[in-house]
């Protein structure tokens, strides 16, 4: 028994066992990862997996479960034991399937799959990784070592059905190529990386250019030093700026808000960032890496501004958190197979501003250009922010020398309010994108 037939069987088993409502999710995936290091094949990893997830309601009580056993008899037993588990769970007035009128009638075509390719065969994948790594290795004699290059391709299929008559299916592909070269000079050693990712094989960045960018980034870090503790302007490169807006999306997500675990509680409709900040979440971008036709509860995904000209315009909500906060769900329910829905942005981005990145750097007399952050020093309850940083010191508008073993610290509330400049360099390489940004001032701790 396959797909929809299996799903319908599980749903009717649920009902037969006394469930008042149920949802089933079946995810199957295959992938191939091909890695080379120093020109030689290092690894080939191929996978096939499928998992079945259930969410069962008995009145206002619910339980979730997942299994890899698709034998119809096993599935029936599995459904029965999940119904039993739901009965042991507390009745929760907010729990339940979404309002049935919110399910989409037709699914839009989002072009999530490459029309011409599936899994890229091993020889070809290894070849691409080899070209990318070779480009990095031959750029400069100081690139002497490498952690290798890897080409990954994946294909997945999602089937979702619930007991109020909604069902939907979609499939997607993904391709990525990454390179991690190591630059050495005397006793000092630095690594950096670069990657390209797309749902269409033909739209990946050229492998040589991926390798060259990775090598330049590693070389740029050689000779990095620690600097004196100071307060100074901080410019975040696009990847780092993307991480910052993910913190905003996390704080704006329903579960963080109703739990009291967000620095954005009670801030809807107020100025939470400088007026040049507009943050959009859009699950409907054609070919977007985070796009999907419906969310983890079968609700239509959408495009909305989370922050519009600095004003917090919406929260990100699934049905449960929306009910708790007396708002409408936003199609942001995220679902790993065996768990209750959580909330996540789909394609999240900071809208581009007017400034070329060079002009942003030029505007700084003394300050920090951040290209790497490490650690988890973000307190989502208070907004307190303190992370390990690496990058370039800016002197008189120029990138002067690399720096490391420093931290940047502040509070997210102040950091968003003091975003002075937003770059025009918005490029999509993952489900989050942002241009270069400049924060007026942060504490930089060093010597």
């Amino acid at each position, binding site marked *: 028994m396959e797909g929809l037939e299996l799903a319908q069987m599980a749903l009717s088993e649920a009902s037969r066992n006394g469930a008042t409502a149920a949802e089933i999710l079946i995810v199957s995936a295959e992938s191939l990862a091909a890695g080379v290091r120093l020109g*030689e094949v*290092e*690894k*080939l*990893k*191929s*996978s*096939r*997996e*499928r998992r079945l997830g259930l969410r069962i309601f008995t009145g206002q*009580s*619910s339980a*979730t*479960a*997942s*299994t*890899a*056993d698709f034998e119809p008899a096993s599935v029936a037993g*599995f459904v029965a034991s*999940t119904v039993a*588990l739901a009965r*042991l*769970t*507390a009745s*929760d007035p907010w729990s339940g399937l979404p309002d049935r009128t919110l399910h989409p009638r037709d699914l839009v075509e989002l072009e999530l799959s490459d029309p011409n390719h599936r899994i890229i065969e*091993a020889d070809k994948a290894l070849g691409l990784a080899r070209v990318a790594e070779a480009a990095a290795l031959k750029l400069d004699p100081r690139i002497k*070592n490498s*952690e290798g290059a890897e080409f990954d391709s994946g294909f997945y299929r999602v089937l979702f059905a619930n007991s109020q008559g909604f069902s939907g299916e979609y499939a997607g592909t993904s391709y990525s190529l990454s390179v991690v070269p*190591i630059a050495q000079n005397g006793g000092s*050693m*630095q*690594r950096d990386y670069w990657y390209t990712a797309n749902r269409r094989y033909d739209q990946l960045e050229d492998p040589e250019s991926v390798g060259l960018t990775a090598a330049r980034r590693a070389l740029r870090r050689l000779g*990095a030093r620690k600097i004196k*503790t*100071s307060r100074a302007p901080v410019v975040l490169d696009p990847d780092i700026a993307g991480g910052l807006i993910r913190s905003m999306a996390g704080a704006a997500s329903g579960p963080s808000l109703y*739990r*009291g675990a967000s620095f954005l*509680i009670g801030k809807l409709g107020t100025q939470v960032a400088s007026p040049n900040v507009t943050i959009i979440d859009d699950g409907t971008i054609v070919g977007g890496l985070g796009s999907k036709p419906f969310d983890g509860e079968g609700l239509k995904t959408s495009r909305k501004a989370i922050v519009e000209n600095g004003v917090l315009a919406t929260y990100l909500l699934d049905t449960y958190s929306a009910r708790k906060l007396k708002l409408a769900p936003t199609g942001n329910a995220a679902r790993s197979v*065996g768990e*209750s829905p959580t909330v996540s942005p789909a394609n999240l981005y900071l809208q581009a501003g007017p400034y070329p990145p060079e002009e942003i750097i030029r505007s700084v007399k003394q300050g920090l250009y951040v290209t*790497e952050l*490490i*650690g988890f*020093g973000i*307190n989502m*309850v*208070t907004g*307190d922010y*303190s*992370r*390990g940083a*690496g990058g370039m010191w800016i002197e008189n508008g120029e990138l002067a020398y690399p720096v*490391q*073993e420093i*931290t940047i*610290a502040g509070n997210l509330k102040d950091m968003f309010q003091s975003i002075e400049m937003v770059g025009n360099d918005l490029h999509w390489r993952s489900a989050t994108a942002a241009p270069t940004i400049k924060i007026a001032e942060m*504490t930089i*701790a*060093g*010597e």
Partner: protein
Amino acid sequence: MANEVQAPDQFFLTRFGMSERAFERILDTALERKADYADLYFEYRDAESISLEESMVNRTSKSVSHGVGVRVCAEDRTGYAYSDEVTIDRMKLAAEAARAIADQRGDRAGVVQVGQPAARQSLYELKTTPLDVPVEEKARLLSEIDKIVRASDPRVKNVMASFAAERKIVMIVNSEGRIAADIQPLCRLNVSVIVEDGTNRQVGTFGGGGRVEYSYLLEGERWKQYALEAARQALVNLDAVDAPAGEMVVVLAHGWPGILLHEAIGHGLEGDFNRKGVSAFTNRIGQQVASPLCTVIDDGTIANRRGSLNVDDEGTPTSRTVLIEKGILRGYLQDTLNARLMKTAPTGNGRRESFAHTPMPRMTNTFMLAGESTPEEIIGSVKHGLYAVSFGGGQVDITNGKFVFSASEAYLIEDGHVTRPVKGATLIGDGPDVLTRVSMVGNDLELDSGIGTCGKDGQSVPVGVGLPTTRIDGITVGGTHA
């Protein structure tokens, strides 16, 4: 299920209709081209989680997963294929995919003969696993935690508590004919408390567990200690002032601050990074990398610990490895692939998250041996500095050696006394340098309560850390108060 618990090596044979002869045939297929080594990794995992928020035990979940991975190694190349269908046909396909790594046809490595299972350590033989305890009983415990925390202080705004348990049955069969199997129970109780005082809101988190029976959480009311500790941390932070910024003396409290060793030292000593020459510790065996006060150990053989294993995920018995002895770098952590290529012995540190992953050298329980100072002497010796008691996560760039770990509870030390609490701050240092700055080590070694999870290359595995109270003469503290 009782017979599974008795003999893990029989479990897969009966559950999936396998036989030693079938393993031999598949390993022969895997080795058909010129390869050094092949293994099969079988995994069957049962898991459950139960959680409470807003005084309701409103989420329960369970999962069953199983799968098999076939790995072929030829020199430094690895081919790996896995499937969640544990059948002979799937394994044959996987073996054919994995052996693509060994591209030259050559002499066969010889016919594989699977022998008897290796003798096992017994570090966590449990009468009952935490999964056997009824869900209702765990739900009652979470409700009790909620009541006690809320009653403990009127500023408590929300309590989130969760219990998670799993039982993994694994079996590894390799081309040397060795067969190893294990049953690995694991559980963890976690409590987060949000407190509010006017507009000031703070969070505290604590928990614990291990490869233990459920009753472990009840002994000496451990569950209650975890709950009240989470509340205490949150309340302390209501009074926290801005943390200092810049380099200063830092005293680390005992226990969980041992995350310092995990980030600063442990990852950099994993065999893969050193074989490839990409670690800041590459070629430094025998050199002084720490003060003579420091002896750092990785030990996978401590009974019932979260980071312990009877055998690693390649079937090698875990062991106790001296990483640093009185300041001198002694050893790396090895899996079989890297040990073979570096011509040394595996240390039982080949671990993986699941059948969907290949093994890598990973830590188990990493800690520093006790010294001679009392914690009071250590704090009393500091004129101006930071006393860091609890931490969130950490991370390291193994190539340049820079590492961070983020304090979630810390205080100023002024004239030898612990004074005001300060807000959380990230500490950043240099792995090969930081332990050379250790000037006092306490006599109070403690291991953490059983909460650690380590991420590497996208794979998470449970680990432990430990530390005596330790004084570091200078590390950069990333506060906001410049």
